[in-house]
């Protein structure tokens, strides 16, 4: 509890200077989009097994330590397992009576339930992994620029792209700040006799409630401060803004994107071909 930053890495950026870090942000965003679409299309264990080598490759090339990513996903994975447990118990689909492993009233464990929950779990883990990797390997400046350039054409039909991207990026940027804040609060309250580092999981969770009011107050104070800071420095969004850093995409970037597209198509279609 006292070192929450170890267990939640969402929104953090780790600069290892790897190939993936140097890739054009637009290409990375595009690849992430392809991954997200693929995560909904792929619906077999074999398909996800085909995805795995690519993810392993990304992990390896990015040089972000795997242990760090896994540790940092503990809370998320724990929560996912918790939800999937109920997904299995309350599985609503058609189940042939021979595939029930256990049944009690409306609660049951069936092979169909386990299968669906398994696919669903893999899907969520896949989604979580690619978005986390995107943020671990892309600085916020690049992320902002990339998003603004991708959605830039929408400005012609008066979609406030800059403002929307700004809000999105600030929201992400605030996550690690909030986590640090929670940590600081937990430490100070521990010093006053709320033992955040002792007791069972349920007790610990209940103590978290005590942090809610102060965290909200400091959140609003921060937002207020940020607004003032932006106003005093005459921030205005839209097409008036110019970029200090221009994004450059090389042929290699587009090849990577192509690789991702082909790989995902394969992971989606190959299992049906093989079983047919």
């Amino acid at each position, binding site marked *: 509890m006292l070192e929450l930053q170890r267990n939640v890495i969402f929104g953090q950026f780790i600069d290892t200077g790897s190939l993936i870090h140097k890739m054009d942000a637009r290409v990375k965003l595009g690849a992430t989009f392809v991954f997200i679409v693929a995560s909904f299309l792929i619906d077999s264990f074999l398909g996800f097994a085909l995805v795995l080598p690519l993810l392993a490759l990304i992990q390896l090339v990015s040089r972000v330590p795997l242990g760090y990513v896994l540790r940092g996903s503990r809370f998320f994975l724990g929560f996912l397992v918790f939800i999937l447990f109920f997904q299995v118990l309350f599985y609503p689909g058609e189940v042939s009576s021979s595939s029930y492993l256990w049944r009690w009233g409306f609660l049951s464990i069936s092979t169909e339930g386990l299968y669906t929950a398994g696919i669903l779990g893999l899907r969520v883990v896949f989604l979580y992994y690619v978005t986390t990797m995107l943020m671990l390997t892309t600085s916020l400046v690049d992320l902002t620029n990339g998003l603004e350039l991708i959605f830039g054409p929408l400005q012609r039909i008066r979609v406030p792209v800059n403002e929307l991207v700004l809000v999105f990026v600030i929201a992400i940027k605030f996550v690690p700040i909030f986590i640090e804040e929670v940590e*600081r609060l937990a430490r100070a309250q521990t010093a006053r006799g709320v033992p955040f580092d002792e007791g069972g999981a349920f007790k610990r969770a209940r103590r978290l409630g005590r942090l809610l009011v102060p965290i909200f107050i400091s959140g609003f104070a921060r937002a207020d401060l940020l607004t003032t800071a932006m106003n005093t420095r005459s921030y205005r969004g839209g097409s008036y803004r110019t970029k200090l850093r221009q994004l450059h995409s090389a042929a290699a970037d587009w090849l990577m994107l192509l690789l991702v597209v082909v790989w995902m198509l394969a992971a989606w279609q190959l299992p049906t071909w093989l079983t047919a």
Partner: protein
Amino acid sequence: MTHDSGEVPIIELRNFRYTYLEGTPRASEAIRDVSFEIRPGERVGLVGPTQSGKSTVVDAFAHLLRLKPGQVFYRGEDVATPGYDRTGLRREIGIVFQQPDSQLIEDVVGADVAFGPTAAGLPAEETRRRVEESLNALNLPYPEYRLRYVHALSGGQRRRVAIAGVLAMHTPVLVLDEPMAGLDPRGRRELLELLTRLQRDRDLTLVVCSASLRDASLLCDRFVVLDRGRTVMDGPVHEVLQEADRLAELDITLPETVNVARKLKELFPDLPTDLLTEDELEAELLKRLGAA
């Protein structure tokens, strides 16, 4: 609590090292090598520029970090041994943090000050007495402030509530991290008087963290100077102040009289710099002027 002998230090750090998020790509080394002992009843100033590690050291006192064994001791006991009574430790060491807001738990002043004593299991009557006593001591009259909303108070008042919350615990050790920050001159004077009085009446062990020797010198008899995670000086106030130039190099704010003495050294090279009051400065100058 008995303060039997001055032999066993109440707090001791032995070659304390600490790295935040150790073993991750975001690791940052905060403390490289810090060792010192604090004896019961001492008034110690923990001085150093920003990033010197003061706040990390304070967190270590009450075991608020993932400590490794053999580095932090309370009354001779290693606080990092498995099964060590951390809750008990935190009832002995009262910490007033840099940002008072982080340690205010309840919404209402009275309830917040009562939080510690209640958590420690004191009877309601005793708790009420302590809340009243602590709030009054900080010039927040009990009947008037008891039901006020914490978050509606001013920054200085919130700091005083935070201090009251710690005082109500009647801890033998009181640690204050930058207690003077954000207080006006009157608030500073009042806090100074209060701390001096408390320290005397309750026989407290007092630790004051600050980037300014000006504040700390009014409260402490001994300084431990930190720089980039290491202890660089440790000694009585006058001894440390003799190396005023070195302190200034470390970006530590010095008392006005010391600054004047440093300038006057151009005229009187043998002028000492450990002059805390104008009277001391005047006496030294008169001595030299008389001689000339």
